[in-house]
């Protein structure tokens, strides 16, 4: 089974995400899933903005779409994005989790269950505790947990919560995160 890379953060981590996407090579051998807090009414523009620097195609997946290596998938506005055991996506309009929809916890926890030790979770700068539970689940299923060094975050709440909740594998600055993601390929 191939690995899956899941990245969580809030809208403020946009620049870091673009930097990461710009550094991953074409034909990256794993799917990359982005669970980012975003405005619920703004459907258009985010994919386009992320695509500018990305060498990999960026898209918002449809419900039941198969997860394929080398694609970047962005959780749509106002939906939870779940990863299924069959390696497809499921979307959901269920209640907000941690005041968020999409919620990082939901994407991370379902990915951890579906991809087990092949899950690589990355928590970036963000303004609430969403993601802390998810990163814990990734560790419980034997996956790898990366957290952006809170010292390098605009807002530290999310990364600090993740570090407090779980003993994570790596606390890295953006370049360290990029180096890790490129080297596992």
């Amino acid at each position, binding site marked *: 089974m191939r690995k899956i890379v899941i990245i969580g953060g809030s809208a403020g981590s946009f620049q870091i995400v673009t930097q990461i996407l710009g550094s991953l090579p074409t034909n990256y051998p794993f799917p990359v899933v982005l669970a980012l807090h975003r405005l619920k*009414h703004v*459907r258009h523009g985010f994919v386009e903005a992320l695509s500018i620097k990305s060498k990999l195609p960026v898209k*918002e*997946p*449809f*419900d*039941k*779409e198969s997860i394929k290596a080398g694609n970047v998938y962005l959780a*749509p506005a*106002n*939906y939870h994005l*779940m*990863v*299924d*055991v069959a390696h*497809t996506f*499921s*979307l*959901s*309009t*269920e*209640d*907000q*989790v*941690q005041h968020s929809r999409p*919620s990082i*916890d*939901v994407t991370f*926890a*379902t990915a951890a*269950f*579906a991809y087990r030790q092949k899950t690589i979770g990355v928590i970036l700068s963000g303004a609430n505790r969403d993601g802390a*539970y998810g990163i814990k689940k990734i560790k419980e299923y034997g996956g790898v947990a990366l957290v952006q060094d809170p010292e390098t975050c605009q807002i530290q709440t999310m990364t600090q919560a993740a570090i407090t909740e779980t003993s994570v594998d790596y606390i890295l600055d953006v370049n360290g995160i990029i180096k890790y993601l490129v080297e596992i390929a």
Partner: protein
Amino acid sequence: MPFNQENILGISDLRRLYEVMREKHRQDYSHYAATSLKRRIEKFIADENISFEVFLEKISENQAFLRSFRDSLPVKGTELFRDPSLWRLLRDSVLPSLIKKDNLIRIWIPDVSTGEDLLSLLIVLKESGLRNSVLIDCGYNDFENPANNQEILYSSSHREISSGNYKRYNDKSDLENYFGETTGGYTFSTKLFKGISFSPINLLRPEKTKPLYNLILCRNILLYYSQQQHDRLTTVLADALLPEGLLILGHYETISFSRDAGRYRSINETETIYQKNMENA
């Protein structure tokens, strides 16, 4: 609602639940989308504060418990006028052009759920003066007929989100005009349900319907069913549409993975509107 539950079910647990539901209650829960079903069951078990074994025992033997479990499963809607751009398009172009063609049109909402899309539609029709040109049929998946209630109660946060959506739909009026106040929320009188036909539907075992409808609103419902069930449901929906009738799905739902995809063509990708092809009878 906290997601933090430690009672995580495995795939074999889910299979055991499917078996119980099939054998004892003749319901095939494998037709639900597994990932979100699993989460809802985990939440139910956590709220009941029981083990999975006890849960299985109780749903096999205790009717009241089974019922409260089944009542907890349908996903509630969260807002009226979700996706304001779609409602504007319905008001400005889709509904007027359907009515212009056929004078009296018939709309089906197969799963009315907690009523948000129905209420939004009724408000659109009322404000456009089109209510008398439209017949509406609704299915309800829950145990109670929504028409039996005097009013629908929503929470305050629901109200805030819905009013915000409505402003984006129509900034010249106010959704508040339609609602009554109550402690901790707001209500919508079901008087506007007059003339709507409600009938029970089990989307796990959908029945074939005659081609009756000019428009079907089925948004964010298919999300909660398996791919196999998608196939069945898109067939039922296609059968229920008149030739060139329209099917509106949620923004991230697609029929393109379904067996009957060829019976439709996409006419608006942004708002996920499909048109049924002309078919030889």
